[in-house]
Every structure is written in structure tokens, then in C-alpha cells.
């Protein structure tokens, strides 16, 4: 179906990449590194789900990397003070809710442009962290890594939690009225208002949800090693936004699926390992990532041009 052309294109590109890897670099598929690689992408995936919702509702949030760092550090301080795992997770998500709500209030109720609001909050959180932690790597207490399980079980848990979130969010976006509200608001806020949907509440809710997911992503990142660095979320925003857009989420809102986001993230996340496996020099990495983003939107732009308006 033409509606899902982008998802199919990305799936095709991902399939091709995986196929080439299978032929020329079968090592890529060794179970343990494969699982580890997948696990390490899960926090970005969860964040990308959140950012996809934000973009579908016709906003943007570039503070998510800083939010993740902040949540991770707050959570590890909480863990360091002896809180049990469950409470640590809740702390992280709670911090995310507060930061998301701040963005949400400023965007939805005060009416400031989201790109500027989140730019400001991004800087604010980053600087707060630097001031607070001075770049110290924080050691986590026992029982946090892999949720206190074995490595295999922990990895399974991280992957299944993340995939559950993708599936649940995809399901909700498709099948719950709330999901359709987000599409409706992103598609035309005034029409949404006339149809009895409150665009401001929806926008606010999306930012809060983004915060929750950032908090969760922080936990999923936290459990993968025994220490946490205060800059652990740096660059996440670009990665997640690129994944969403490459996966077919329209930057003007109203369009896109979380399946596309999943595929987009896997595609972009595998470019780098693939370069390693193809023995390409690392200094081409950024240029190729940029090209992949441009090619993806280029394909979209050309396709749009052919269609009658």
C-alpha cells in the first residue's frame, strides 16, 4: 500500500543491509554481540517512540538527550541512597514526567515554539548536570545492573520491555482514541478543536509521555553497565529524531507509524556496526549517517513531487 511506502522502503533498505552483512560479514550474526548490540539500542528505541509521538503531534523535543542524562543521574543517586530497584525506576520516570511537563506547559499553555523551549531546557538540564556532577562517573550499587538478574536474563528483559513499549504504543496509536487524537492534532489542530479534541491537552500529554519514556530509557540504559556517566544522553535527540524521520514520520506532523520508527532506528543503528564490519575507516561514519538521512527524505520529496497536489 502506498501509505506505507516509506516503511517498506526502510524495511527494504534494512533487509538489504542485513543481507549484505550476512554474505560478507557473517560475524555480525554471532549471537552474543548481536544481542548486546540490540540491547544497547533499546534506550534509543524507547526515546524514538516518544519523539515520534511528539513529531506526529507537530512539535519537536530536542531536550530528550539531556532529559535522559538527568533521569539516569537522578536514578543512580536514588539507587546510591539505597532505594530498591522499583523505586529507582519510578524515580527516573518521575523525573522524566516533571521535565516533560515543564516542556508541555511552556509549549501547550504558554504557546512558545517547541523548538525554542526544548532548546532552552536542553541547555538547562545539561548545565545543571555538569554543575552537579562535575563529570564524575557514578558507580551503581549491586543489583541494579541487569535488574539484578543474570546478563542473559537482563538483556532479554531490556529488549522485551522495549519491544513491548513499541508494540503497545503502536497498538495504542492505532487503536485507542488517544492515539488518533495525536494524529488529528498533528494533522490540523484547528480541525481537531472543531471535532472536540483539545489540542493543548493533547500536546501537553505528549510531552509528558515523552518525559516518561525518557525516564524509562534512562533506566534501560542504566542497567547495562555498573557505572553511569552524566553525559550518557548526549546526542540522543539527533539519533531519535533522525530515526523517526527516516522511518517515515512527517516532520510537519500527522503522519507516520511506530513500525517505521522501529525500522528507521534499526537501519540507522546498524549503519555504524556495518561500517566496522566492512572495515570502512571510522571518519566516514558521520558523512554516511548524514547521507542516509538526506537520501531518506529525498526519496520522500521526490515521491511527493510526482503526486498531484
Amino acid at each position, binding site marked *: 500500500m502506498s501509505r506505507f511506502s516509506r516503511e517498506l522502503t526502510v524495511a527494504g533498505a534494512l533487509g538489504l543491509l542485513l543481507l549484505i552483512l550476512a554474505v560478507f560479514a557473517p560475524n555480525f550474526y554471532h549471537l*552474543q*554481540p548481536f544481542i548486546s548490540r540490540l540491547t*544497547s539500542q533499546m534506550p534509543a528505541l524507547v526515546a524514538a517512540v516518544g519523539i515520534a509521538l511528539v513529531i506526529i503531534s507537530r512539535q519537536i523535543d530536542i531536550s530528550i538527550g539531556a532529559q535522559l542524562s538527568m533521569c539516569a543521574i537522578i536514578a543512580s543517586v536514588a539507587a546510591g541512597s539505597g532505594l530498591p530497584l522499583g523505586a529507582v525506576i519510578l524515580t527516573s520516570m518521575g523525573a522524566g514526567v516533571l521535565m516533560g511537563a515543564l516542556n508541555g506547559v511552556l509549549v501547550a499553555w504558554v504557546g512558545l515554539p517547541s523548538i525554542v523551549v526544548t532548546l532552552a531546557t536542553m541547555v538547562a538540564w545539561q548545565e545543571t548536570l555538569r554543575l552537579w556532577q562535575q563529570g564524575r*562517573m557514578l558507580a551503581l550499587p549491586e543489583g541494579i545492573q541487569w535488574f539484578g538478574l543474570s546478563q542473559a536474563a537482563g538483556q532479554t528483559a531490556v529488549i522485551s520491555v522495549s519491544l513491548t513499549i513499541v508494540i503497545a504504543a503502536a497498538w495504542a496509536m492505532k487503536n485507542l482514541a488517544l492515539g488518533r487524537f495525536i494524529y488529528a492534532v498533528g494533522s490540523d489542530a484547528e480541525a481537531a478543536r472543531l471535532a472536540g479534541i483539545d489540542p493543548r491537552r493533547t500536546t501537553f500529554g505528549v510531552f509528558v509521555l515523552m518525559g516518561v519514556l525518557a525516564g524509562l530509557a534512562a533506566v534501560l540504559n542504566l542497567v547495562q553497565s555498573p557505572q553511569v556517566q552524566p553525559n550518557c544522553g*548526549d546526542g540522543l535527540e539527533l539519533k531519535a529524531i533522525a530515526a523517526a524521520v527516516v522511518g517515515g514520520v512527517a516532520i510537519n506532523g500527522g503522519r507516520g507509524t511506530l513500525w517505521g520508527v522501529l525500522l528507521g532506528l534499526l537501519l540507522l543503528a546498524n549503519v555504524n*556496526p556495518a561500517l566496522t564490519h566492512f*572495515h570502512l575507516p571510522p571518519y566516514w561514519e558521520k558523512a554516511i549517517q548524514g547521507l542516509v538521512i538526506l537520501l531518506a527524505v529525498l526519496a520522500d520529496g521526490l515521491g511527493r513531487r510526482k503526486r498531484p497536489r
Partner: protein
Amino acid sequence: SKSESKGKLTIALLLKSKGNQYFVTCEKGARIAAAQINAELKVDGPINSDPAKQNEIVENWITDGVDVIVAACENKDSISTALRKARAAGIKVVTYDADAQPDARSFFVNQATAQGIGEQLIDTAATLTGSEGEFAIITGTLTSANLNEWIKHIKARHAAKYPNMKLVDIKPCDDQKDKAQQETTNLLSTYPDLKVIVSVTSPGVPGAAEAVKQAGKTGKVKVVGLGLPSENNAYVKEGVTQGVILWNVENLGYLAIMAGAAVAKGDLVAGATEFDGGKLGTMEVTGDQIILGKPVVFTRENIDQFKF
């Protein structure tokens, strides 16, 4: 000079980056020294990777009229431009940790030469692997000047002394531990015969160690690198990381200030062969360099003694 008229020496300590544990420790040593000689200490450094920031800070100090600038240089050539200006303005300049161009400072407090660091790293790696097999390097960012300098010396020593070792890849981790972990995972699966991973950046060491541990290759793939003992303690004890190499960072900061003060007071002038390094005793001066001493290799046995 100015210092006499004011009575109290003002020393400015330039860090490569603020909010970085390594330099936080340096600063600690520097404060001890400043308190000891009753000098006023200003500390500043960039908080992001903007290569122009260090120059800006130095030029601010020039207008402030400090007596001495003690600088760790991120970009050798750029910072030299600013340091030369400082010298022209009558400010004494001493570098530490990473040097500037020789004409931009009077002395360099060297924790170990770039060559020494590079060679120490590959020598340790070679010892661990019997001088053969594949190795890979984790670096900070591709554009970081002094990391590249160290890598250059690793490569030179490798070519000269270890023909049976093979450098398979160099990966940047953007000074993020998590990224180092991911890159190491990729390296491990791309090069199944990899024998050792060398990290020239401190977040890279625990990152690489965690990846090796998760891959179940503890002991089979060795990890060595420049790093802080506190961040690597657990891995060293578990036997994942074999060699963490670092000088005594606190002493480096301490000595840098002592050298700066000595230059300002005229106790340390060109041609000197030794000077009073305070609690470190009399330090030897070789040409225009003051060597802190050999780097420490932190091992399971001694790592608990170092608290930074």
C-alpha cells in the same frame, strides 16, 4: 613585576575541559599547591568541545592581568596563538599535561611524554599478548589533537618493534562510555581473533571492559588504557582490565602550579637543571621540560591505593 606590587601571586590554571574527572583531580592538586605557596588561583576551562574556547579563556586572563598561566592544551596550534599573546603581555606561561608550541611557553610540566605514553600503552599490550595478534584502539574524538599524537606514537612503536601485532581498527567513542562499549562489541564480533583493546581515552577503558565482560571474553581479550583508578577498580579486580595506566594526576596539578610559581618568582629560568617541587622534593629539569615521573600502572595489587 606585577606580582610584587600586588604582593600575592595570581596563577591561572587552564583545564582542557571542565566537569571532567581527570581535570577535577588536577585542580585538587593545584589548590593544594596554591594554598601552600599562598597564591591566588583561578581555574577555568571549556565545557564543550568548541576548539576556540580555550583561546577565549586565555585572552580573558590576559586582560585580567594574571601573573602566570598554567595551561593544558587541547589544540596545540590554536592555543599557542593565544599563549604567545600572553607572553607578549608579560605573563609567564607554563604548560602541563599537553604541550603547546615550544615558543609559546617557557616550561612544560610533563607527566610523561607523548612518546612515553604511546610506548607504554603498546608495550603493556605487547607484554600481555606475547607481542603478537590483533589489537584495536578506542579514541575520544577523531579530531582530538593529543589523542592523535599518542596514537601516532603507538603506531610508530608498533611498526618498529612489534611486527607480529596488527592494528585492525581505531574507533572514536565521543568520550562516552556507552559508545565505547558499543564500539568494542562491534570490534569483538568483526575481529574474532582480537587480542587486546587499547583505549587512549579514559571513558573508553571501562566501556571496553564492560563489552569484553559481556561478551564472555574476560581474560581472552585484554583491555589496557589510560584511565582513572576509581573508574576501573572493579574491572581490574575482576581481571577484565589488565592495565590502567596513569600518572598521579593530583601531583601533576600540584607540580604544574609549583612550576608556574617558580617561573613567576624567577626561581626557574631557562637553563636551570632543577627546582623545588614542594612536597614532591627537588625536581629535575631537562631542557624546557619537567618530568613528573613515570606513569603508574594500576594493577589489582596497587589500585586501591589511589583515590581518584
